[in-house]
């Protein structure tokens, strides 16, 4: 039955223009492909209720989660610094040391990833599409506040269903540097400094002690890098490389990528001088 509905319907239900479905057997335009083609923005996402199962071997326990992570972002006079680690764990197995936890939504907006890897990358990719639609409709760039609000409202519809996402939306708009923390519980908070993940406490300690209003670009970058490094040092679930981005008035730029092992040698050598 699922196969027949696949072969009879356009697959890209997310664009949801026409709700008619030929012989699919689903009244609301659902296809076997897992997309709901609802009219309007087509953003409502089809949910299949999972059968009640206590099976420990079910894939829920094997999905990659990034609760074990350290991501941070802070505002300073020259923009926003975004620094993240790159480790993804599935239980106690390190699934990857090269995860890109900063998502480039568009040339002037960045989003970070913490929580469920698939949840973060999927919803932020959807956010990128929605930001582009906004640009086309309104002939101007979307503000950071509006982009973060779109994301928060999208995931709020799934509150309680098990999405796990803790993200920071960072950008530069008419009001200057913008930084919002959005999560799958429904929180959306603007601020000057956020750190998310299991290593966040270690990162807060470093950033709080070094943050000053008159930081230069190099000092701010080094502060972000050091904070993530210290978090990877003490948190078993954070590690890999430190990816550093900076958002300024012209957009974002990728500053550096440093392996934590090399940073360790570097800081150790500096401490011995």
């Amino acid at each position, binding site marked *: 039955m*699922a*196969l027949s509905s*696949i*072969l009879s319907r*356009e*697959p890209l239900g997310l664009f949801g223009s026409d709700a008619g479905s030929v012989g699919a057997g689903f009244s609301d335009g659902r296809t*076997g*492909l*897992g*997309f709901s083609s609802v009219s309007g923005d087509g953003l409502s996402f*089809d*949910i*299949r*209720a*999972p*059968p009640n*199962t*206590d*099976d*420990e*071997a*079910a*894939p*829920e326990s*094997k*999905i*990659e989660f990034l609760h074990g992570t350290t991501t941070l972002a802070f505002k300073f006079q020259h923009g926003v610094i975004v620094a993240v680690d790159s480790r*993804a764990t*599935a239980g106690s*197995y390190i*699934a*990857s040391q*090269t*995860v*890109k936890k900063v998502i480039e939504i568009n040339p002037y907006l960045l989003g970070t990833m913490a929580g*469920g*890897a*698939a*949840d973060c*990358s*999927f919803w932020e990719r959807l956010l990128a599409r929605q930001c582009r639609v906004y640009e086309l409709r309104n002939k101007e760039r979307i503000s950071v506040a509006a982009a973060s609000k779109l994301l928060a409202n999208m995931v709020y519809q799934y509150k309680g*269903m*098990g*999405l796990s996402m803790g993200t920071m939306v960072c950008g530069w708009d008419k009001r200057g540097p913008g930084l919002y923390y959005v999560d799958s519980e429904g929180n959306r908070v603007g601020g000057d400094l956020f750190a998310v993940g299991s290593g966040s406490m270690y990162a807060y300690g470093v950033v709080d002690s070094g943050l000053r209003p008159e930081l230069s670009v190099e000092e701010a970058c080094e502060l972000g890098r050091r904070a993530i490094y210290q978090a990877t040092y003490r948190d078993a679930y954070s590690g890999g490389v430190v990816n550093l981005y900076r958002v300024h008035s012209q957009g974002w730029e990728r500053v550096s990528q440093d392996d934590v092992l090399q940073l360790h040698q570097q800081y150790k050598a500096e401490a011995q001088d």
Partner: protein
Amino acid sequence: MLSTPMFANGGRMKEYHHSGSTECRFSPYAYNGGTVLAVAGEDFAIVASDTRLSEGYSIHSRDSPKCYKLTDTTVLGCSGFHGDCLTLTKIIDARLKMYKHSNNKSMTSGAIAAMLSTILYGRRFFPYYVYNIIGGLDEEGRGAVYSFDPVGSYQRDSYKAGGSASAMLQPLLDNQIGFKNMENVQHLPLTLEKAMQLVKDVFISAAERDVYTGDALKLCIITKEGIKEEMVPLRKD
């Protein structure tokens, strides 16, 4: 072949003596084992899988490879629950055909990877219990490997092992292909011959220590000339 409660532990050893009450619940998932591996080189990609299909203590088949040819330049390896592997490959084949009919060209490896991610996420709340690894050539002819988790999170790698013996194989690949944790070693680029030998050696090792891996190894070698297949016997015990 029904998934009786006895096999519902997902591949762990079942305890023979129960003390206390037993609750038997229907599980829509079963664990059929199997290991998949993909390696990307400068102008080639290799996707390899064992061919054993098991469930609990039984072997259902010794000739059930987990590599599926998608296009002339892309092969998908999927392990986990065989039922979901079959449905997923059917859906991908149908979507590839639709793309070809509407766009008059085959899907590129990167596009297939992005599409698979959304297909998997479409079942976020009742996931496909499948570990996917795509191997193929990108638009510039370079080898590409994309690895997925069951709900669609993916990234491009140069090598990845998935499935039951993945935790045994991945560290070995990290060392031999990624030159990790070695100092003063020359980073030589990976040749096709060395990659093939490495894949064979690595599966032979996995078959020694993982009960769900064995019987035979199927290699799909993807180059610009096309896809070549090779079968190598493994331990059958």
